[in-house]
């Protein structure tokens, strides 16, 4: 497993096609990991680009951390990761919470970001997004898995349920993630979003609860285009090739 040290913490990364001239960095979502890109999306992008995937802190196989889940800290981590990998300027893509990190990167480090692709980034002020963080319990996880993950077709067995439960318990009750997220609730209302100058692709599911967030960003970011893909919030899992091709076309456009 490729593990590098970033800001004193171990970070699991995966790199494809290191020889390519341009780099795409992809950021996964909360309670997920880099595998959301690893099997379908990254290999297609790697036919033309150097692709870098990494697990966020306390996710996947990266080291746990008690603090630093606000967008400032998460973008400090990503910027430091780019420095360790000697990446001066990259195309950046992010899914869900990773999309918020990507937006914040474009705001804070515009000179380091070429094109920007945002997949299903939610409005942090949305009740449903914050509700998940406020109301977590074992019963919630079981109910959630039973009722809301069926669109990805993957059912969790006992061992996986335990693994996920331990991760949720850790993130919700031992780390600062809840308070850090609370601080970000006005992010979409912030004038800083309007300062984003990069060419930006917004990919949202036609049946997603987050589609309005995509429309909101489309109205705020001057150089943005919104594409609605059949599916819900899980479009990278439901339609990996559609997402991969949309990303590849977007990054290749001159």
């Amino acid at each position: 497993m490729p593990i590098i040290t970033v800001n004193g913490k171990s970070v699991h990364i995966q790199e494809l096609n290191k020889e390519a001239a341009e780099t795409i960095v992809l950021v996964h979502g909360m309670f997920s990991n880099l595998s959301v890109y690893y099997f379908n999306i990254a290999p297609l992008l790697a036919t033309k680009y150097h692709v870098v995937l990494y697990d966020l802190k306390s996710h996947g196989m990266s080291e746990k951390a008690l603090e630093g889940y606000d967008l400032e800290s998460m973008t400090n981590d990503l910027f430091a990761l780019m420095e360790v990998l000697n990446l001066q300027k990259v195309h950046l893509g992010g899914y869900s919470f990773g999309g918020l990190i990507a937006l914040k990167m474009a705001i804070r480090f515009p000179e380091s970001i070429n094109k920007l692709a945002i997949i299903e980034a939610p409005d942090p002020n949305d009740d449903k997004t914050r509700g998940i963080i406020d109301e977590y319990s074992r019963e919630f996880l079981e109910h959630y898995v039973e009722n809301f993950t069926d669109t990805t077709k993957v059912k969790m067995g006992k061992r996986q349920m335990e693994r996920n439960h331990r991760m949720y318990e850790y993130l919700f009750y031992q780390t600062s993630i809840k308070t850090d997220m609370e601080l970000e609730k006005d992010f979409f209302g912030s004038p800083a979003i309007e300062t984003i100058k990069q060419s930006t692709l917004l990919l949202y599911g036609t049946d997603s609860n987050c589609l309005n967030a995509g429309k909101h960003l489309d109205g705020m970011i001057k150089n943005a285009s919104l594409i609605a893909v059949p599916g819900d919030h899980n479009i990278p899992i439901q339609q990996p090739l559609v997402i991969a091709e949309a990303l590849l076309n977007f990054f290749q456009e001159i």
Partner: protein
Amino acid sequence: MDTITTKLSSEEIFNLMKQFITEVIGEEFVEEMDITPESSFTKDLEMDSIEIVSFSEKIKAHFGEQIDFTGWLSSMDLDQLINLNLGMIISYIEECQS
């Protein structure tokens, strides 16, 4: 990278896969399972996607350039990935060796 060049039999590949699975999910879970070539990764072995990433990395590290395991997986859709079993991987590795 400890790449190999000798051709493995299907039983040797199966044992190697079992060793990788044990390294990824831990001996205590493997002891409770009856791993066979029909065992599917998600349903029977209950491996999640990040564990399958670890497993893939082990195959890549072992066989090196000899096989394009990630490329092979990337040609599969979600249903195929969910139904992926050990026998399919053994056949794929055997094909690459021939």
